[in-house]
C-alpha cells in the first residue's frame, strides 16, 4: 500500500480509501464486513462515510466491522449533514455517528454536500455547523475537519475564501472534470496552496457512464485520479471483486506522466462538454434528498436515494439502530 501525507495534519493515509455509500450496496452484511476486514489487511486506512447514507446503515456496518480491535488501524471519517441547519443539530449527529461507529472519536469530520449557492453562508452563519467543528475538536471528539461537495467549484472556493482552517477538502476529480466546471483546475491548486489535504472522489465519474460508453477504462481513470496531488482517492467499493481490482491498480501504481494525463484529458474533452458523464454536476437527480429537503427543494420520488430514505426498514438483515434526530431544533 502507498501512504501519503494528509496536508499539514501530520497524519498519513492510504492512497485509496473505501467509500461509505457503496458499503450499503454490498449484498450481505457478512460480505460488507469481510470487505472492510480485507481492505484493512491490505493496508487501506482511509474510511469514508456520512451520517445520512442509508439512514445510518453504512455507519453501523462500518462500526460492526471495526469493533474487535480494528478501530485503531484506520483513519476514520464521517460527514455531518446539517445542510444549513444549526451547530446544535450537528453535535447530535456527531453523537449518532460515534455511537454507530462504536468509537469515542473520529479522525476526520467533514461537512457533507456543499452543493448550493447559499451553503457556504449557511455553514459560516452564527450558530452554524462550523461552531460545532470548534466544539467537537475542543472536546476531543474529532481530530480534523473538512468539507465535501460534488456540484460546482465556485462553492468550494467560497468555502475557502471565507477563511475557516479546514484540514481537508473533498471533491470530484477525474479526466472529465478537467474539461467541465473543473475542480481540478479551479479548486485543487488553491487547496494545495493553503496546505490543506485534497481528497479525491468520483474517479470514475460517479456513474462510470464514460467507461460504459467506451471512452475510457476503469484502470486509467483510477490511475489518473491517483496521479493528481491528492492525499487519497475515495473509491466506491461495493464488492470484494471491486476491492481486489482497485488493490491491483494500487500495487502496480506508477503516477502518470504529465503528457499521459494531458492525452487522457484531451480524449475526454469532446464527450465531457455536456456534463453527462459527470451527472452529479448537472443533474438534480444526484443531489441526496436529505440535502434537498432542509433547503426546501422538491425531490423526485423515482430517485433511488429517495426510495432508500423513505424505506424505513433499511433491509431485512439490519434493524435501524438509532432514533432519528429531530431536525431543525
Amino acid at each position, binding site marked *: 500500500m502507498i501512504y501519503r501525507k494528509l496536508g499539514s495534519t501530520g497524519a498519513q493515509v492510504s492512497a485509496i480509501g473505501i467509500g461509505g455509500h457503496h458499503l450499503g450496496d454490498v449484498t450481505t452484511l457478512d460480505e460488507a464486513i469481510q470487505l472492510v476486514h480485507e481492505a484493512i489487511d491490505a493496508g487501506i486506512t482511509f474510511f469514508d462515510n456520512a451520517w445520512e447514507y442509508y439512514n445510518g446503515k453504512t455507519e453501523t456496518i462500518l462500526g460492526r466491522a471495526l469493533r474487535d480491535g480494528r478501530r485503531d488501524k484506520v483513519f476514520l471519517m464521517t460527514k455531518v449533514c446539517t*445542510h*444549513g*441547519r*444549526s451547530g446544535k*443539530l450537528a453535535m447530535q449527529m456527531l453523537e449518532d455517528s460515534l455511537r454507530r461507529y462504536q468509537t469515542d472519536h473520529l479522525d476526520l469530520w467533514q461537512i457533507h454536500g456543499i*452543493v*448550493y*449557492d*447559499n451553503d457556504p*453562508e*449557511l455553514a*459560516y*452563519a*452564527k*450558530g*452554524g455547523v462550523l461552531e460545532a467543528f470548534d466544539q467537537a475538536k475542543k472536546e476531543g471528539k474529532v481530530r480534523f475537519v473538512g468539507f465535501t461537495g460534488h456540484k*460546482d467549484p465556485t462553492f468550494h472556493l467560497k468555502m475557502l475564501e471565507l477563511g475557516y482552517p479546514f484540514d481537508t477538502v473533498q471533491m470530484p476529480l477525474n479526466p472529465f472534470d478537467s*474539461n*467541465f*466546471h473543473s475542480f481540478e483546475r479551479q479548486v485543487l491548486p488553491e487547496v494545495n496552496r493553503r496546505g490543506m489535504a485534497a481528497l479525491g472522489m468520483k474517479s470514475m465519474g460517479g456513474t462510470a457512464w464514460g467507461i460504459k460508453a467506451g471512452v475510457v477504462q476503469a484502470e486509467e481513470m483510477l490511475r489518473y485520479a491517483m496521479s493528481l496531488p491528492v492525499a487519497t482517492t475515495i473509491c466506491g467499493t461495493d464488492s470484494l471483486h471491486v476491492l481486489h481490482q482497485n488493490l491491483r491498480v494500487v500495487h502496480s501504481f506508477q503516477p502518470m506522466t504529465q503528457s499521459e494525463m494531458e492525452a487522457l484529458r484531451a480524449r475526454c*474533452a*469532446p*464527450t*465531457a*462538454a*455536456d*456534463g*453527462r458523464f459527470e*451527472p452529479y454536476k*448537472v*443533474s*438534480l*437527480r*444526484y*443531489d441526496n434528498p436529505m440535502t*434537498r*429537503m*432542509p*433547503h*426546501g*427543494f*422538491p*425531490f423526485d420520488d423515482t430517485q433511488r436515494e429517495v426510495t432508500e430514505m423513505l424505506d424505513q426498514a433499511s433491509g431485512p438483515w439490519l434493524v435501524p439502530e438509532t432514533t432519528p434526530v429531530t*431536525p*431543525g*431544533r
Partner: protein
Amino acid sequence: MAEQERQNQQGEAIPELDRRSFMQEGMASAGAVIATSALRRQIAVAAVPSQMTNKGADQISRRVLGKTGEQVSIIGLGGYHLGTVHSRDMAVRLVQEAVDAGVTFFDNAWEYNDHRSEEWMGLGLQGRRERVFLMSKVCTHGRDKNVAMQQLEESLKRLGTDHLDLWQIHEVIYENDPELHFAKGGVVEALDQAKKQGKVRFVGFTGHKSPVIHLKMLAHDYPFDTVQMPLNCFDATYRSFEQQVLPELQRRGIAVLGMKSLGGDGQPILYGVVRAEEALRYAMSLPVASTICGIDSLDVLRQNVRIAHGFKPMSPQEMQALRDRCRSSSGDGHLELFKTTKKYDGKVGREQHGYPPPEQLPI
C-alpha cells in the same frame, strides 16, 4: 405564460410543497441575515435600467440596441413558440397582430420546429418586413462556415427577405462550443462574410446553459453586437447570467437580449413562487434591449403587450425583494431546467456533438 395555462390544466403535476416547511426553520434562523446581505452586494451592479424611449400608455416602448444605433421593442416575439401554434393561419395572424401592436423584435432559428417557425414567420411578415427588426440563428453547432452560409440562404428564403437585421450563433451550450465556433473555417468567419455581403446587418450569439461558456465566447474579443441569454428572477442563485455575464456585456457596450423570463417552462408560476406579470416585469427591468417572449396564442400576445404598454421598470428595491423571495426555492436550479437538464438542448446540436438525445439520459 402559455406554459402556465397548459400546466394549470394539469393540476396533478403540482409538487407537494408541504415538504418545504418540513425542517426549514432551523436553517432560516441560522443563515438568512448573512445570506441576504452578501447576495445584495453581488447584484447591485446589474440593476441599472437602460435608456428607454417611452411611447406612452398604449404604445410599446423601445430601447437602444447596444452600439448599433438601432432601436427595438422592449418585448420580442420568440420564434420557437410560433412554430408550435396549432395552425398556420393562426401563426400568421399572431405575427401580424404583434407587428401592428408595435412589437418590432422578431426572434427565430434555422432549426426550430423543422423550419416551420421561419416559414410561418415569413408568411406573417409579408408586407410588414420593413416594420420589424428580424433575427434568426445559425445552427452549425461546430460545423464549418459553408454550412452556415447555406443555412443563411435557407433562412432568408423562408423568412421571405434578402437580409436579416441580426444573425446569431445558436445554442452555445457545450464547453467546447467556443473553440469550435472560433476554429479556422468556422461559423465566426461566416458572420464576417455575411456582413460583408450585406445579407446580415448585425451578429451575436445565444445560449441557455452556463455563464462560463458565454464568458469564454466573449474572451475571443470578437465584435458581437448582441448576446442572448436567460434572465429571470431565479437566475441569481444558480450559475447566474445576470451576475456573471450581464455586467461584462454592459462594460463592452454589447446589447443584451433576455429570454426565459418565466424560467423556460413557467414551472415557477405553477409552483406559486411568482406571478407571470412580475416575472416578466423583472426581466424587462434589467439593462436589456429586449426580452424575448414565448408566445403561442393571441391571449398570451395580448397579455404581454398589456404588460409592455406604458411599462415602468421595477425599482432596485422591488427587484431585490423579488430575488430574495425566489432565493430559497431557486438555489438548486430546479426552476431553470434549461440549465440543469438536457431537455432544452436542441436535437441538431446534440447530434453534431455526438451526444445521445436527452430522453436516453437518466439525468
